[in-house]
């Protein structure tokens, strides 16, 4: 097991170098130069320009810049925002709980609906229900977030007034953040109605962010289930006269879940990508919105650092999934 773990971690090293190279090159490969972009219509004198390039460390040889950058990253220094002048890592962690909370709720939504829907679609293969589920999954998977989000807002907030338009909690409530998770903080605040308000603000963005993972999970569950239902041992169990509920619930589902769990792990990347649009639409103060702001403000260090941190998180989650998978399935571990 230890050997397996070390092997998985060793594979991460080239990936890490690749990711840092990409995030490093990003700011330097752009045509023109960042200082010019920051100045915009205001013309800079050559001296001002040189000083600004120096301040950003862009006037040194590229390999040295990269090594410095790598050294910084390894010691947890992801640079400092050009705009707010605060460390990128600090900015990131002050916003990460908001994204994490939204992602977790979106994932719960996707799993709770996706797995049963996929399972029943497989059992009732070819039925109206199956076609409905697979049709909706295809639509959900293809639904662009920038359209789906506003659509739900217009319907549920604009026309029906059932849910709030955007934000994390009604502006009436104000309490300093403790954990950064609004659901927990609103409970801790003890203010009446705060938790309900936070929950009602979560519904629409969680649905929007969870839609694509939901579609993927439903499809994956269905196909894994179908495969398992065709296995010999299931036929044997049925032939023995075991009740169908037990055949499906215990024997089939458990084995079908293995590829589904991998799929769920892979959805972390999808959630991060989706968070960028979802958070912008719902004014959700997480890292997605933070990255978009950085793009608009041409805050290169934040874009660079943010991309790298997100990539590292995805790498880490994949590692965990890999290890868990190996833990569950000995064949993988010894291969």
């Amino acid at each position: 097991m230890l050997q397996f773990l070390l092997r998985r971690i060793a594979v991460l090293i080239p990936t890490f170098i690749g990711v840092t190279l990409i995030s490093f090159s990003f700011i330097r490969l752009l045509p023109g130069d960042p200082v010019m972009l920051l100045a915009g219509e205001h013309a800079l004198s050559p001296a001002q320009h040189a000083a600004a390039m120096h301040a950003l460390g862009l006037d040194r040889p590229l390999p040295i810049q990269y090594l410095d950058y790598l050294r910084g990253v390894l010691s947890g220094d992801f640079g400092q925002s050009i705009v707010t002048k605060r460390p990128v890592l600090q900015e990131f962690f002050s916003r990460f709980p908001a994204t994490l909370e939204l992602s977790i709720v979106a994932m719960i939504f996707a799993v709770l609906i996706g797995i049963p829907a996929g399972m029943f679609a497989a059992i009732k293969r070819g039925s109206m229900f199956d076609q409905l589920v697979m049709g909706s999954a295809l639509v959900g998977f293809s639904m662009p977030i920038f359209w789906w989000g506003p659509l739900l807002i217009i319907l549920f907030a604009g026309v029906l007034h059932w849910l709030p338009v955007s934000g994390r909690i009604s502006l009436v409530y104000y309490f300093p953040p403790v954990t950064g998770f609004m659901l927990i903080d609103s409970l801790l605040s003890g203010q009446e109605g705060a938790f309900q308000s936070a929950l009602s603000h979560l519904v629409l963005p969680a649905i929007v962010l969870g839609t694509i993972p939901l579609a993927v999970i439903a499809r994956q569950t269905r196909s894994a289930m179908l495969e398992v239902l065709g296995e010999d041992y299931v036929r044997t169990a049925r032939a023995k006269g075991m009740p169908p509920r037990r055949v499906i619930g215990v024997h089939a589902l458990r084995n079908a879940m293995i590829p589904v769990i991998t799929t769920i792990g892979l959805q972390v990347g999808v959630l991060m990508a989706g968070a960028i649009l979802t958070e912008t639409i719902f004014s959700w103060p997480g890292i997605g919105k933070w990255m978009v702001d950085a793009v608009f403000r041409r805050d290169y260090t934040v874009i660079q650092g943010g991309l790298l941190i997100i990539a590292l998180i995805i790498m880490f989650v994949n590692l965990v999934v890999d290890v868990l998978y190996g833990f569950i399935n000995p064949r993988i571990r010894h291969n």
Partner: protein
Amino acid sequence: MKMVTKLLAASVVAASFASMAQASTLVYCSEGSPEGFDPALYTAGTTFDASSQAVYNRLLQFKPGTTQLQPGLATSYDVSKDGLTYTFHLRKGVKFGATSYFKPTRDMNADDVVFTFERQLDKKSPWYSYVNGGAYVYFDDMGMPGLIKSVKKIDDYTVEFTLTKPNAPFLADLGMDFSSIVSKEYADQLQKAGKMQQFNQEPVGTGPFSFVAYQSDAVIRYKANADYWAGKPKIDNLVFAITPDAAVRVQKLKAGECQIMAYPNAADVAALKKDPNLKVEEQQGLNVAYMAYNTSQKPFDNAKVRQALNMAIDREAIVKAVFEGMAKVATNPIPPTMWGYNKSIKNEPYDPAAAKKMLEEAGVKNLEMNLWAMPVSRPYMLNARRAAEIIQADWAKIGVKAKIVTYEWGEYLKKSRAKDHDGAVMLGWTGDNGDPDNFLATLLGCDAVGGNNVAEWCNKDFNALVTKAAETADQAERAKLYEQAQVIFKQEAPWLTIDNSTVIMPMSKSVQGYVMNPLGSHNFEGVSLSK
């Protein structure tokens, strides 16, 4: 299903709470997060709205709705005969707003004013670089370090500025956001506690509102400054609900989650105007989009050629296609909301036949040229590519072949400033301080050739008028000089003036007394809410 009903009930409860507590709370759906709260460190309007406009005052301020200056923290000023010394008499009894993190023990005085400017001038001051990597960019951009020789306290309520040369636009610079007067007492206190960074995170000012709290990227809260020298604001609380998506801002306004919003999409404006609960106010923005001919190159060195090319272009068509009505055709290099704007000037008529004839008379045949279109959307020009295509088609009708070129934005700016660039460059400008000098000298003066003056246009008469105006203290006299300069500009036609964009502010009908600011800032000082 039970869950849904519960949620519904919760949101209804929350909504009724909201209407109760918001009786005197104005919620503004703003378009982005502030970069910080020390306005001198930044150049973005979003940051100024949240800092200088809400929390601070300046010695002189812009009269709401105009670019005219009026007394702010200074009640009056004297200018020496040589135009080099400005003496400001400060308002007495001005209190800094008390907050949970700072209780002022004295009124605003000359020490605060001197500190405000010294920290931006004196490289040795610990406050010059108190934010790691931060700089007083706007102060530097406006040429203040070279202009201000000294700032001296004469007595507690008198401050004297000495300049290196006579410069009338200096007064307008004092109305700019970077000139917001900060508290020296607060700065000293933070320095002693080793918490200087807090100066940029928790602001203390003399303005209409006091800062309460900022939840990153989500909400900024202010309360009315009860001791405000110009009278306590009529609303008790001001809240910025940061909402980056324009369509979502519209939905929030409609749902009553905010009462006023900034920057709607052009496509939403018609529907907003029809909503019985809303009203929509509009004003010309302090900006201009233009296309500058490189007048140092043949055949664009001939004013007749430039005029002929201008006459071939249907500007109304550009404004319609690109802005859907959210802009007006520009005539002068300064926008119409600015003092000194010459109303009697008219654009060249749109007349392709006459244009063709004029070109022939000037001896120009089979002209082929580059037409530069910006790769980015700017407030003054949302879609340069589209505008360039219209110009290209218009020119084709008179036999001029234009090739549309574009570069990545940084590269575009750099290349367009090179003296020998080829053809006509589309670009624009947003005013900094409401002074005509900030357009006419900055964009068309001889000193700006090779820099912001991408027409590479140096006209002696124009330049003399603009320079003289900058050295004249009397504003009425300056306005006259600028009006003459605009006549020369139109005759010489170094630019095709394209448009001034329109700024739109939709708000609930309950919002009273909001005045749109031609400088683009959002200020809620005089606003009240009716029920």
